[in-house]
């Protein structure tokens, strides 16, 4: 008889748990969390801006091309001068 009672209690646990009233966040907390999440959501939607590292990289590459090009011209000029001197 006691076992029957035990089984009955176990069977009713699911029903009891399912019937327990749901708890909820405080209304203020619920609104705050939703606002924070929506702000995060909007940030995600925006196209990504070029980061600072990317901009620095572009600047570095531009300078390298400019300076590298100048260096090449400088050396080419020097070579021509030396060649010219040598021809004389």
């Amino acid at each position, binding site marked *: 008889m006691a076992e029957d009672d035990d089984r009955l209690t176990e069977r009713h646990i699911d029903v009891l748990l399912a019937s327990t009233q749901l708890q*909820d966040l405080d209304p203020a907390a619920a609104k705050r969390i939703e606002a924070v999440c929506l702000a995060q*959501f909007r940030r995600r939607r925006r196209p990504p801006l070029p980061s600072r590292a990317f901009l620095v990289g572009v600047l570095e590459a531009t300078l390298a091309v400019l300076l590298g090009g100048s260096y090449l011209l400088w050396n080419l000029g020097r070579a021509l001068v030396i060649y010219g001197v040598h021809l004389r």
Partner: protein
Amino acid sequence: MRDDRACDPELLARLRQGDEEAFSELYAAYRARLFTFLLRLGGRRDLAEDLCQELWLRLAARPPVLQQDMPLGPWLYRVARNLYISYLRSREYDENRTAELTAIQFLSSLQPDPLEELSGNEMQHCLQAALAQLPLPYRECLLLVSGAGLTAQQAADVLDLPAPTFRKRLSRAREMLAKWMRLG
């Protein structure tokens, strides 16, 4: 889930397209259920609130890509449970030593059910007290199936357990809870 939401895939698709209303609809649909799950899992309102915020932020930052016809609920419960486990690990939480404290906090954090007060039925209160004493591996099984309404397979997937192991654990959880309720 037993109350599967057929609209989940559609809502998720809208969410990925950046529809704010879709986020609000999901938030309204799952907020209380997830909060209740986290509250029963951890027994503290402040902790459940923090973990809830983290959970919803994750959804907002990166909506999951789920297989067709797969409800969002199990994914949300998995994230909620993992957040709670991470919290326990970060605090080096010792469940055994603090079980009593958790039970006390748990009981004080739960709002009384007006019907329970009116009818004078202490069954619900007794259930919550017994639930708080249940060790975490058993408590989470019971909360996912009986509380959250996931199927046994979905809950086993959430916990990364083989289905037979999960069923044994669930059965043991029911048994322990019933025993403590009878003692209480």
